[in-house]
């Protein structure tokens, strides 16, 4: 792979579902390991952007490159945490079974997880604070615990780049804190963590860099430089009352730094 290619690069990406445009002409380059937030209102195409990066939805135009390579050549290095609601939690598997699924791609066809995979899965579970619940059926977990199971599965992928789709949605405060702690660890281990996130208040405090998305890219860069009232107004045209609160959150962050 090209040595100086950016970690993740969206070049003029457009996606449409059934003829309806979802996102268009997104140009976004992430060239260093950091906690990167993709922020925008509901229906802004944030999740679609992640799915486009993973090749889960067809691009109408443009391209996505990881380390300068198309996704199919780097899949093993890209961890993914989908939205929790996308699966049936009544499925007859245990917490451990789900986390082991993170090791399947490396195992390849027909090979079953062995002691190496078991160890990796157990470590991943411990990192999200669920070591005690390994044998529990996944339906018997709280929403926050389920989200952490998904995070543990991604950790078991042992990737260099992580894409997370709304990992904090519908999650209790304790789980949020635990998830954020793990994401910070990943950044400390020099990994890129891209998080689709809808809550502006926490975004200001959590992310090093952000992109504001409203079907197109509004702005991207260091968090404080991007989350300006002007940019937010352009992104959240319909949700003005939020802006005041965010301004306060940013101001508070400035004071603590």
């Amino acid at each position, binding site marked *: 792979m090209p040595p100086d290619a950016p970690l993740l690069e969206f070049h003029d990406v457009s996606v449409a579902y059934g003829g309806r445009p979802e996102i268009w002409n997104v140009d976004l380059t992430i060239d260093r390991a950091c906690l990167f937030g993709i922020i925008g209102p509901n229906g802004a195409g944030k999740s679609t952007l992640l799915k486009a990066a993973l090749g889960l939805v067809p691009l109408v135009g443009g391209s996505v490159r990881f380390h300068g390579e198309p996704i199919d050549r780097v899949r093993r290095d890209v961890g993914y945490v989908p939205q929790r609601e996308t699966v049936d939690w009544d499925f007859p598997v245990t917490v451990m079974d789900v986390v082991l699924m993170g090791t*399947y791609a490396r195992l390849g066809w027909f090979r079953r997880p062995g002691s190496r995979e078991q160890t990796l899965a157990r470590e991943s579970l411990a990192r999200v604070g669920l070591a005690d619940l390994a044998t529990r059926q996944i339906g018997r977990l709280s929403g926050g615990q389920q989200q952490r199971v998904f995070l543990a599965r991604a950790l078991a992928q042992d990737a260099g780049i992580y894409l997370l789709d709304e990992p904090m949605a519908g999650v209790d405060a304790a789980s949020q804190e635990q998830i954020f702690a793990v994401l910070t660890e990943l950044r400390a281990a020099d990994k890129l963590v891209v998080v689709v996130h809808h809550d502006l208040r926490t975004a200001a405090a959590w992310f090093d860099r952000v992109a504001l998305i409203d079907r197109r890219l509004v702005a991207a860069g260091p968090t404080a430089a991007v989350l300006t009232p002007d940019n937010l107004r352009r992104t959240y045209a319909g949700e003005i009352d939020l802006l005041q609160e965010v301004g306060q959150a940013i101001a508070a962050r400035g004071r603590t730094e």
Partner: protein
Amino acid sequence: MTGTWLPYNTLVVAAGVAAVGLAAGVVGSFTLLRKRPLVGDAAAHATLAGVAGAFLVSGRRDLPMLLAGALAAAVAGLAALVLIRRFTKTRDDAATALVVGVGFGAGIVLVSGITARGIPDGAGLETFLLGHTAALTAADATLLAAVSIAAVAVVLLILKEATLVAFDAEFAAATGWPVTLIDLVLVTLVAVMVVVGLPAAGAVLVTALVVIPPLAARQWTERVTTMLVLAGGFGLTAAVAGVAVTSRVPGLATGPVVVLAAAAIFAVSLVFAPRRGLLARRQEARRGRAAEEHRP
């Protein structure tokens, strides 16, 4: 026929049909887990037309030939389902109803036409409507068993991949698994099981053999592997019950007996299973209420 309790031929047929019941339960578990329980229905109702077509083309009534025709028709039915989904805005359930209706209608027209015109040897085809194991030879039963065992072997081979896709197809795709291919293998297995299940349960009822044992098994366990074992065991039990009863009652179709046996197993599972059973859930609700009342 000798005076033993069960003649040799019946024993072989029972063993063959037992293997079919087991494999139907195992394969059916994945259609249930993948939330596509009606896929088998579209395939099953199309098989009758395939059986009749194979008979008309070959002019003979030997089982491998007829089942090959049934498999071709089952695949055609599933292909129709896929095409309707892709190129029209018809809902899944409506598309299934369409394929079931048209496929079955065509089958009935062909079978009753063959019977009405008095084509030699054609009189037995209607047994494929409701299943009739008494007519099976030992060679037929061996064929059914061999195909069934192969189907189970394929499921066991791709157990990891199939479970991943059934639980989270999006994650599977994101991590590089060919979801469509894995789905295709599973659907093909269902078509195969529906076809080899025809002699035991018939075109109308064979779907039940694929759907009911897994439903019952799901009640008892929270693990996929245990579910497969139980569903296989329940399917086997229902199939053997069908053969045992109909081998002693001449003229009785096997399919309805098999399905009723499976339904009985399901009813017991629905009520008595620990945790998921109705009784257990009622008790849990009662405990929950009691805890609520004792709270200060």
